[in-house]
């Protein structure tokens, strides 16, 4: 009986639970710090990005460039789907979840972090 009481007082579940909560709170703080650091880095690059937008004339992201009609999603252009011939195979770019074969050993996947 005494040993049970001792064991219970040593491993008080409330303390373990609050410890786990504290660990999660530390995890949240680390995520927050990571976010702040990344946002600061992004803010430093903002002027360069704005120059690029001014020169390119569009803020559309260069991630869909396998079809002319999708490269600039905010602007219409002279291209339309299936323009080579009616119903002919088109250069459709953005299949869901399936990747294309690699061209010229280029990466076809978005990579996060350093290239």
């Amino acid at each position, binding site marked *: 009986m005494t040993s049970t009481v001792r064991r219970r007082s040593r491993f008080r579940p409330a303390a373990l639970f609050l410890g786990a909560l504290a660990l999660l709170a530390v995890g949240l703080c680390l995520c927050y710090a990571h976010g702040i650091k990344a946002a600061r880095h992004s803010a430093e690059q903002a002027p360069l990005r704005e*120059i690029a937008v*001014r020169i390119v004339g569009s803020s559309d992201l*260069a991630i869909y*460039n396998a079809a002319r009609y999708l490269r600039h999603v905010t602007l219409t252009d002279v291209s339309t789907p299936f323009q080579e011939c009616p119903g002919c195979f088109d250069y459709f770019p953005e299949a869901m979840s399936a990747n294309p074969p690699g061209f010229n050993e280029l990466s076809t996947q978005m990579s996060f972090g350093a290239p």
Partner: protein
Amino acid sequence: MNRYLNLLDFTLYSLLRRKWKILFLMLLFSYLVFLFSSVLLLTGAIKNEAKKGVRALPDITIQRLTAGRQVPIPAAYGEKLREVFGIAEIEPRIWGYYFVASTQANYTILGYDNERDAWKGLGRIVLQGTSGVSLGEGEAILGEGILKDRYLRLGQTLSLDTPSQTTKSFQVVGAFKGVTNLLTYDVILLNQRDAREILGVEEGFVTDFSVYISNKNEITTVAKKIMQILPGTRVVIKNQLARTYDMVYSWRSGFTLITLLGCLFAFAMMVWERASGLSAEEKREIGILKATGWDTSDILIMKSWEGLGISLTSFVAGLIGSYVFTFVLGAPLLKSLILGWSVLYPPFTFTPSVSLDQILVLLSLTVVPYLIATVIPSWRAATVDPDTVIRGV
């Protein structure tokens, strides 16, 4: 304080008796939060990335339509635009696409005007080669993607075909810096005359006009005036462009979330099952506690601890997991669903973008229903006579 800690101790001992069931429940809870928040975080980040440049966009873009299709617009329209009061700057632009069959990639070709003041900052975003930032005939500045696609380096020659099937060569005099990859990865900047030749835009015509307005409150008014003096044109204002990003990226996340709805329904069914009644064991436990002198409020506190302990820790664990998965590991698998693929994919890092409303929506969809499903049946059982509960009548 000690009372609450003792109640917490008791709650946790009670949970430990059902540890495998509770562990499975917490894993399921965390996984659900992880799935939904990963989709929301990734979509939020890419929308945020696209919207970053909106401030620098032209206030109005003017295109010409013939038979419902966009066609080059006469450069003379620029003179008519000057008559509109409130316009600060008019920029005729020559741009278009160049398809490369061997790599199935589309390059974006832009005509560069050395005289344009707004473009003087080019030197800050370009790694210069053999000449300055002024772009002469036969010279080109390339995005990183094109350098890689064509195995080119500064000083080498890029060959492009004209619509008349002749080939024209350009010396690569600069490359866009990696920091602008998301905007310039597939861009070729040429002198305006060269861009005309490669794109086949005739003299006296331009692709479209970018217009900047002095007073930003008058953008809509000026746009209406332009539509009156230039019938047959499409006038696009900046706000419409910003809204497009919401639509383009939201449909993809919406599609992905729909496929995950099954998980949410399964979770809702589990919560419903709990809300509809406690197990016989749980009822007996409450009855015994009441018989040994516990108040209804003590039982409610205990059950609140139980609900909060399970749901909040699972929620936070799922949230942290999704953050690390999305912004540290790069959302493997999920990025294919949300972003698709392309031939020239720019390498870049997303800036984390977490909004409070996203977290609140997830919280209200998961933690709140679970808490209700834990406390309400316990309250029902705690208000019944202990003898009836223990006997299971």
